């Protein structure tokens, strides 16, 4: 039975979970919600998810939200092996560390920079851009010396970070000064299964939206 996936293409977290779904070959029934038109507040969806956020995954009678929990769940439930989300506690801890870093620091600082401009009529704040670049520099350090986010295989950390960082690039953030990040993102663009299909269009749309507001 297909899994229902409620999403919005603009949303980086949604694209992150879809990258994992693609990687494990899950049978996904895409259900697009336009958050800008308040579609997430419709009673049917709130009945599934009282927090009315996206992405939301429904697998049988189990409803799950939080994109990184969804990615870890898909990898654990449907992955043919543990390469996407290693079972070894230390390896897994490094993946989890990056998932929380992406959520709580990296993407968070991007949101602080772009959302006031996109949704609240605010203007570009150079200080917030500086903070984002600080976080990108930390990421640059984390990526040094290996091909993917954690070692030699793609993991769910790469999915989450790729969705985030590609969105930054589309919004015009200069990644060139972070050489490991640039090289890793190019690798994601070229080699990550499903990237062009499930990530690129939404990232491009996000970038266009931001640029239309930032003048």
């Amino acid at each position, binding site marked *: 039975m297909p899994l229902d996936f409620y999403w919005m293409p603009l949303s980086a977290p949604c694209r992150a979970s879809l990258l994992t779904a693609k990687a494990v070959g899950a049978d996904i029934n895409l259900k697009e919600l336009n958050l800008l038109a308040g579609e997430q507040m419709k009673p049917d969806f709130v009945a599934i998810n*009282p*927090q009315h956020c996206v992405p939301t995954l429904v697998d049988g009678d*189990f409803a*799950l*939200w*939080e*994109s*990184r*929990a*969804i990615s*870890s*769940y898909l990898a*654990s*439930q449907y992955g043919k092996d543990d390469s996407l989300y290693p079972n070894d*506690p*230390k390896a*897994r*801890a*490094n993946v*989890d*560390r990056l*998932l*929380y*870093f992406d*959520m*709580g*620091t990296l993407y*968070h600082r991007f949101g602080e920079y772009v959302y006031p401009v996109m949704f609240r009529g605010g203007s570009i704040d150079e200080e917030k851009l500086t903070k984002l670049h600080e976080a990108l520099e*930390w990421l640059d*350090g984390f990526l040094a010396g290996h091909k993917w986010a954690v070692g030699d295989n793609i993991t769910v950390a790469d999915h989450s970070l790729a969705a985030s960082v590609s969105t930054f690039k589309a919004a015009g953030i200069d990644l060139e000064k972070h050489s490991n990040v640039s090289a890793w993102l190019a690798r994601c663009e070229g080699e990550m299964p499903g990237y062009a299909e499930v990530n690129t269009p939404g990232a491009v749309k996000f970038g266009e939206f931001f640029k239309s507001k930032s003048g």
Partner: protein
Amino acid sequence: MAPTLYSFLMSPYSRSVLVTAQALDLELDVRTINLKQQEQLKPEYVAINPQHTVPTLVDGDLVLTESRAIVTYLASRYGRDDALYPKDVVTRAKVDGLLYFDCATLCIRWRAVVHPVMKAGVSKPSEESLENLAEALTWLDDKLQQQPGRYLAGTVQPTVADICLATWACTYEAAGFSLAQHPRLAAWLARCRDNIKGFKEVSDVGAAQYGEMFKAILKSRS
């Protein structure tokens, strides 16, 4: 050799790790990094953790940041069983979902309540920030209503999600806020205090320190 934990008792994120270690009967070599005195910016600490966040765990060649990644790691590596971090895929996903909710919803809304007071000289939390936080607490309260007597992920025993959210909740109360509008959360917090080993000794002590600090700042602004 015991893992080393760099932590600051006042911070709920450090306390989550300290309580988890107690619950696991795991000895840690605890070293205090005083955030009030900006000790996290000292070169020797930045050399360990360039992001200079606290807590940081060092276990052999593993240097681990992000409190929620640390608690799940400790539970996986050192747990005698999987009670704190169940291996069942669906239950684990529920625990993970709660940890991410804690990280990017609850935490953010809490910071919007307290940071303007602590860092920007505002005299009291804004109504809007308090309403947003109350909304998040209602989501948790409603979840508990659907599973009476259980913990947040629907489990019979507390998990790391309960530890992380409870260390925050006792900080919230110590800072002078009330869970009266969220009675199931209040009851859940009482269950956590009674049933999580080390909770009262570690988290309530650190929360009280935070509470004193926050109340003193509020008083100075009025």
